[in-house]
């Protein structure tokens, strides 16, 4: 039982319910970088804050208009988000642009969603005047959550919210050329939050500790909104606090006797790599019952290392909950349920590369896949041959398709991409389906295993990056690089995580007097500044040698294969000065 009234149609109803039932219980706590509490909000305070802000928003924007939410880590974001929901204004959470980014990576998103408001706070305005400067000539108003209006605004009548009204737009991070905003309706959100509650078995006692940025779908839905939905306390820390001291996350779980906490796979690796016995005195992880792992491929060896390192602090293997989801399905698609250790399956690595399942031929060929559990009731999942669009049986790898009330309405103002992604049809089955772009299979018990992806997205530390954006940045970084003649793709690092590889043609006229170091440096710098990724490897190739389709599009997959075989027609590469990131 979720403890909520049956007529709940939006998250604002849920907030009203908890503010009424447990006004003085703490909804959110924000921790300081070096320990101690920075701020907190009870359910009652959040409701009052959201009410007051909703009135100020309603003065400036009509229901259905968009408001950009731009905040450094903290609780003001939460108040702003609920203020928007309550005013019926569509919230658009965005990352604060990096200081050194030359071209504003959020410009394309602003053009796409045409906001009426920018909502932020005075802390950001004062510490990052460059951000406000970027928006100075923009055709929208800036509203500070902690600012004061000239006249006191009385709360107007509550905005009537329907299930199909859009609650927020989730732009998948890093998209600069053709941003796509997933339209998540109030109904999608409520239905997926109920699925998450059932999937994780959460109650108002399920204290949660999270550090994932709130502009990221996982941080927003799975950390912040999920906790509020179940009426639990959510303890948040800044992402940078986790990156600096990963064990402080575990310390907070221990201190607050948290039941739920989760992160992308890399975070579990980081905790093990930074483990120091002297930093974990009196650490007690026995309260931690749900350690979900999502947004990146879940790795069996990571889970194993984590259990080995932290079992002595009371961490139980059965707490591990691999989870599969994506913003297009609001968040959750499937999760390992109940207190049982994750299911793994050992397959042939070589066959997996051909998208086939078979037993490993040799020890070196062994690869362990981790199951991501089952779908939660109300939702359907099918494995489909992406070419024929026919459904496949158990133990066949195909594209993961999803149908259910949690599948979003589509992409904002993009009918073409909405049709292609959200309205697929399977022969012999009813309804329309979401094509996830991910590959996987169901075993005989309907456990989902994710094995790869057909979409070209590059996933680094749980963030999605689009290759065309990176290729564009690389090309623009130096005049010696040919336009539309670069390929960016993901490849496995020696340590198993994903790294970015860029292969780029040089201009014919430049290739005999090329300053290779200069070009490589320019690409690295531009990619770091615009996309926040350290490039794993850069290869410069001779003009006209990058594989392309007859219509002139770069073939990224084929380029990757040639790169793996070392079959590229290299002008010069940085293999002698390889700089795979040390993490």
């Amino acid at each position: 039982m979720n403890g909520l009234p049956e007529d709940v149609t939006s998250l604002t109803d849920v907030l009203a319910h908890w503010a009424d039932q447990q006004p003085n219980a703490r909804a959110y706590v924000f921790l300081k970088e070096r320990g101690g509490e920075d701020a907190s909000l009870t359910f009652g305070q959040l409701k009052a804050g959201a009410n007051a802000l909703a009135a100020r928003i309603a003065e400036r924007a009509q229901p259905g208009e968009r408001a950009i939410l731009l905040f450094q880590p903290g609780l003001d974001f939460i108040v702003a988000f609920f203020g928007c929901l309550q005013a019926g204004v569509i919230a658009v959470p965005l990352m604060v642009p990096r200081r050194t980014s030359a071209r504003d990576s959020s410009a394309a998103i602003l053009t796409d969603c045409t906001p009426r408001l920018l909502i932020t706070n005075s802390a950001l305005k004062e510490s990052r005047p460059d951000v406000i400067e970027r928006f100075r000539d923009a055709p929208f108003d800036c509203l500070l959550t902690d600012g004061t209006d000239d006249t006191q605004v009385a709360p107007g009548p509550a905005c009537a919210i329907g299930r199909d009204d859009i609650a927020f737009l989730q732009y998948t991070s890093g998209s600069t050329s053709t941003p796509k905003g997933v339209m998540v309706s109030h109904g999608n959100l409520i239905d997926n939050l109920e699925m998450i509650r059932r999937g994780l078995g959460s109650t108002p006692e399920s204290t949660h500790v999270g550090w994932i940025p709130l502009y990221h779908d996982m941080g927003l839905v799975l950390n912040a909104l999920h906790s509020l939905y179940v009426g639990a306390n959510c303890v948040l820390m800044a992402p940078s606090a986790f990156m600096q001291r990963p064990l402080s996350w575990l310390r907070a779980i221990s201190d607050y006797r948290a039941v739920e906490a989760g992160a992308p796979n890399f975070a579990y690796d980081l905790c093990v790599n930074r483990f120091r016995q002297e930093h974990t005195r009196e650490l007690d992880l026995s309260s931690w019952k749900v350690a979900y792992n999502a947004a990146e491929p879940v790795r069996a060896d990571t889970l194993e290392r984590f259990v080995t390192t932290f079992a002595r602090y009371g961490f139980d293997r059965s707490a591990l909950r691999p989870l599969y989801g994506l913003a297009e399905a609001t968040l959750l698609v499937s999760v390992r349920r109940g207190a049982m250790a994750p299911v793994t399956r050992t397959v042939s690595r070589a066959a997996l590369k051909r998208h086939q399942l078979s037993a490993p031929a040799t020890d070196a060929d062994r690869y362990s896949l981790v199951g991501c559990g089952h779908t939660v009731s109300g939702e359907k999942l099918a494995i489909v041959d992406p070419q024929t669009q026919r459904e496949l049986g158990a133990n066949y790898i195909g594209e993961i398709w999803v149908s259910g009330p949690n599948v979003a309405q589509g992409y904002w103002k993009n009918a073409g991409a909405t049709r292609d992604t959200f309205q697929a049809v399977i022969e012999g089955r009813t309804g329309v389906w979401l094509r996830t772009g991910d590959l996987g299979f169901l075993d005989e018990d309907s456990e989902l295993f994710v094995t790869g992806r057909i979409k070209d997205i590059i996933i680094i530390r749980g963030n999605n990056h689009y290759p065309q954006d990176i290729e564009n940045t690389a090309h623009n970084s130096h005049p010696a690089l040919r336009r539309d003649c670069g390929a960016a793709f993901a490849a496995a690092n020696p340590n198993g995580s994903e790294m970015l590889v860029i292969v780029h043609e040089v201009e014919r006229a430049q290739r005999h007097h090329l300053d290779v170091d200069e070009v490589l440096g320019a690409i690295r710098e531009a990619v770091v500044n615009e996309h926040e990724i350290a490039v794993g490897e850069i290869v410069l190739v001779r003009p006209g040698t990058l594989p392309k389709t007859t219509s002139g599009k770069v073939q990224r997959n084929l380029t990757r294969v040639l790169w793996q075989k070392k079959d590229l027609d290299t002008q010069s590469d940085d293999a002698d000065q390889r700089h795979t990131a040390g993490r």
Partner: protein
Amino acid sequence: MENLDAAELNIRRWCTDYLAETLKLPPSRIDPQTKFARLGMDSAMSVFFLVALEDWLGVELGSDVVFDHPTVAELARHVAGRFPQAAASAVGK
């Protein structure tokens, strides 16, 4: 030739060794005047770099220091100026 004191040189040497190891480059290729971004350092790497430097020196530098002093040379000058004792006496890796 620039005028560098022992503390500043000590920090430079440590930063160069750290970056060479992380970026898998020979230390001779880490130019102290090259911006960290140009070396391909993203924010996760700069956080790890900062934490390692703080641990080595036993001081707190604050998370903006790598942003505000974006080369080995500038960072070494800044840190040596703020913590001359720690910078001169820190040893090892």
